[in-house]
């Protein structure tokens, strides 16, 4: 029982690539402290991330429907600490791509020489955590990877160094600390209930069969959901979101909104998959997931309706969309997992594009986007498409498809309160995004264009993000099955 685990390096590549990136950047920064103000660090990190994404995508496509495993214990036990099915690999690829996009938009941080390297380091480290947590199948890896995904993000927010950012970072920090404590308590309860440090359907089923341990398990899941709810911005664990988004730079905001969310979804799917695998008839768990989902849908959409700052609007929309991600999970069945993953991916892509457009225009209020479609067809068009996808209106067909997918499991399972909240959220959500969309379209573009921030290189990177992101959305809208096939 005490042998080393076997390691299959190619399988680990998605996580190893950013980890290696951390080392490369730190070593490079130490070796070449004055070289171009650390400007080289960002491209290097981007390349590393794209390589990782390539590896993950190859795993998702190449492995077919097979689950990749590594870090396995020898024969009698045989458990593996890294299990990545196509869904997980696709989510990993999404995390890596979103992190790359965040990197591309990391241009209006403090322009101090060393910070680029540090930012890149932190971002890479957090990405490593996100990728690792997606494939974690045991409490240890899961906890560590999750914190690896969180702690550098807190530092990233604080790195901006403005007063407001400090306040945002403080809120994020204290919320993350509390969540971490709860998460650990949840892990402890999970171990107490199942007696197993892995997320395994069998032990969950056994624990569920015993009424006393079942109660512990319910509480454990509550705490795990709460801990992840913080990362996912589910109400009532959401309060840091608008502050952090609005006060930090847009690159970090994209990281929090896209990469970090995908990591959180991936992390959430790990215990939920174990519960689903156990095939429980568990109304209590439905309540645990349903109440935050409903609260997020409701609060997120209605508050987003009143925001005038595009970043804050996106922050509140994130909260609502987090609710949407959890909506299918309330059904606790296998299609729900894929629906949640698909929703998260589409949301992440759309929100990244929206942030990129905001970064390109440098807009501080929605009104700054008046007539954008005419002034800047690329930014306007991409933003419009992203908003339609988020609203779930054709031509953003993929947004509609994932909403259908998300609603199907709870309808099937008869979780009507969640479904009803979903209907309301669809409608109010349309109002939210159309409000912005209207501004984009409106003709009188006589306001001067807000001056874009950042150097030319960043603008080019932003444009790449816009083009690639909207191309992805268009492609997925035309052939949604491409995306869904990756997740099956």
């Amino acid at each position, binding site marked *: 029982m005490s042998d080393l685990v076997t390691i299959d390096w190619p399988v680990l590549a998605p996580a190893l690539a950013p980890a290696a990136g951390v080392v490369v950047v730190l070593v490079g920064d130490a070796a070449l402290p004055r070289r171009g103000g650390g400007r080289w660090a960002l491209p290097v990190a981007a390349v590393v991330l794209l390589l990782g994404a390539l590896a993950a995508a190859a795993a998702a496509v190449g492995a077919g429907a097979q689950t990749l495993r590594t870090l396995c214990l020898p024969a009698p036990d045989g458990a593996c600490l890294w299990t990545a099915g196509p869904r997980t690999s696709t989510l990993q690829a999404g995390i890596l791509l979103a992190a790359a996009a965040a990197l591309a938009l990391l241009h209006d941080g403090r322009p101090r020489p060393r910070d680029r390297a540090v930012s890149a380091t932190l971002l890479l480290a957090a990405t490593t955590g996100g990728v690792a947590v997606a494939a974690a199948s045991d409490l240890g890896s899961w906890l560590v990877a999750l914190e690896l995904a969180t702690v550098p993000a807190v530092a990233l927010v604080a790195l901006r160094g403005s007063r407001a950012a400090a*306040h945002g970072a403080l809120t994020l920090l204290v*919320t993350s600390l509390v*969540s971490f404590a709860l998460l650990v308590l949840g892990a402890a309860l999970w171990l107490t209930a199942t007696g197993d440090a892995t997320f395994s359907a069998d032990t969950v089923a056994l624990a569920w069969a015993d009424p006393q341990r079942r*109660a512990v398990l319910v*509480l454990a899941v*509550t705490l795990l959901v709460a801990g992840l*709810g913080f990362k996912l911005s589910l109400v009532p664990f959401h309060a840091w979101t608008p502050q952090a988004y609005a006060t930090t730079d847009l690159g970090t905001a994209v990281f929090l909104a896209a990469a970090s969310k995908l990591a959180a979804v991936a992390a959430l799917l790990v215990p939920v998959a174990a519960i689903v695998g156990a095939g429980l008839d568990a*109304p209590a768990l439905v309540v645990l997931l349903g109440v935050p989902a409903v609260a997020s849908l409701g609060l997120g959409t*209605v508050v987003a309706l*009143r925001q005038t700052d595009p970043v804050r609007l996106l922050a509140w929309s994130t909260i609502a969309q987090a609710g949407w991600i959890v909506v299918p999970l309330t059904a606790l069945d296998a299609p729900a997992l894929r629906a949640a993953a698909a929703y998260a991916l589409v949301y992440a892509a759309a929100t990244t594009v929206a942030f990129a457009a905001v970064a390109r225009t440098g807009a501080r209020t929605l009104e700054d986007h008046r007539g954008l479609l005419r002034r800047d067809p690329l930014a306007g068009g991409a933003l419009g498409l992203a908003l339609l996808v988020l609203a779930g209106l054709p031509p953003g067909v993929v947004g509609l498809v994932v909403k259908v997918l998300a609603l199907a499991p709870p309808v099937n399972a008869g979780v009507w309160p969640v479904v009803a909240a979903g209907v309301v959220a669809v409608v109010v959500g349309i109002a939210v995004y159309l409000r912005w969309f209207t501004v984009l379209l409106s003709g009188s573009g006589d306001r001067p264009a807000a001056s874009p921030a950042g150097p030319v290189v960043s603008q080019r990177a932003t444009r790449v993000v816009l083009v690639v992101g909207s191309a992805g959305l268009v492609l997925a809208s035309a052939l949604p099955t491409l995306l869904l096939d990756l997740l099956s």
Partner: protein
Amino acid sequence: MTPWLLVGLPVAAAVLGVALRRNDLLARAVAVGLGAATLLVAVLAWALADGSAVSAGPGLRAGELAVPLDLVLDPTRGALAAVVALVALAVQVYSTWYLETDDRYGQFAATVSLFTGAMLLVVVSADLLLTVVGWEVMGWCSYLLIGHWSRRAAARRAALKAFLVTRVADIGFVLGIIGLAAGAGSTSLSAVLAPWRRPTACIDAALADGALAGEALTACGAPDGALRATLLVLVVVGILGKSAQVPFQDWLADAMEGPTPASALIHAATMVAAGTVVLAALFPVFADSPAARWFLGVAVAVTMLLAALLAFAQTDLKRMLAWSTVSQVAVMLSAVAAAPPADGADAGLLHLWSHALFKSLLFLAIGWAALAAGGTAAMALRGSAAAAPVLRTGFLVGFLSLAGVPLVVVGGLSKEHVLVTAWDGAVQADGPGVLVLVALVLTAAVTAAYSTRGYLVLTAHVRQQPTATGVPAVVHGVLWVLVLLTVFGSLVVLTGSFAVHQVSALWMLLSVLVIGVGVAVALRGGFDRDPAQVLARRFVPVADAGLGVDLLYRRVVATPVLRLARLVAFVDTEVVDAYVRGSAVATRAAGWAGARLHRAERPSAAVGLVLTGVVLLGALGVLAWS
């Protein structure tokens, strides 16, 4: 095929007329030419009709309901079609002169053609749905014709009133027809009649065997009597509306705002008389339903007397003719109401036939006279018959016929038949026969009185004799033809197209007596004074106002409906829509509250939310589990 031609020709004339309305000459040619063709076809069809021949229609695929859209032609329908076509042609010819200077002659002629087509459709329809089609199209055409001079507010109002009053009554007509059709699963006339008739022989046999009445009815599959009565009453309501019977009588007098040829058409042969045709078609069922017969009987009995009295006291002679139409249509309908089941309704149809002739004559003549005299008021028209010989003759013949002087003219003979039918009905005592008979006798007297009045006024000696110049010969010709037909038209009885009994001499004597009384009363003031001024001076203003029924319509129907409409419009925006706006406001308010709660962005609040959320969720989870 012939019946389709009969309907198709006038409709084609209408379409062509609209297309060619810019060119007066072509429009006239189309209207008169196709009108003549229609008449020709109608006469041929009448002449060749032998028994009842059904022409298959295109048929509709309307689910369970069979809608064959057939037409039928038999001698009676042929005769009616012929007189309709004749009057229509007369009106068309007359219009070419009467509306010579009208810039909308084309539309008018086309509308008249369409009107004729619709009436012919009602006449030859063997399908209740087609009957409704003709019925409604006539209503629409009457709207257009009455409102033809739409530059006059009174004409616009009269047109609106005519259409709305008849349309309201049509609620009943349509529902009744639908109900009858629903009972048969078909709109075909023959198919509808079958299930609604009482299987008399079967019931008699069962009763003879000693069965109880209820059992006998059930066993023989007799129709639901109450339902049948309801449906027939509904149909009758529609007919009362179209025929301007009480309580819908008021629109017809106002309809005099239309051009005189239009009035002639509406009054003589088409719209108002159409009800008699429909009821005659439904007679086999109608005769079985005493309730419906009583309903119709009471309505027409009241109408014929009331309208006759109102006619007597009108200051406007054209309105007098309008009221006389109301009264005469009531006479036709009374024959249907009172006729014993064995006799059939042909007495009413015969009266329709003769009424068409003499009423068109009277209208066309008075239109000419009015043109010559410059108005339709009795004062203006005094002595206007002197304008042309044909007018004097026409008025004489027409009013004689209207008064119902027996044998001499068509009106007299047909009225005798109605009286006889009512007597038969009264004798058999299964229906409103007695009531109708009494009303008929009284009406005959009053009719004689106002006919006398009309003739007296029109032929009075005045110093300045009106002259009619520029009236084309063809108009003279038309009137002469109508005069001749009014005198000799009663010979139609000999063709056997109308199944009527012999009229006994006793009845003739009686009616002459009654008419004599009426004439005598009218002549009380001498030959040179208007009897209305002599006999009913106080009643005249009331009669001119139609007894104030118009006000009643407004108070009882129009105003409440408009009030309701305003209420509904208010509720629509302030209540129904309020929920929509309310939800928007609520959402915004929730958003405001949510944003407000998060405005301070205190870190401790974030932490507190997390902790509270976890504890509540945990408690909820544990509770929900246990």
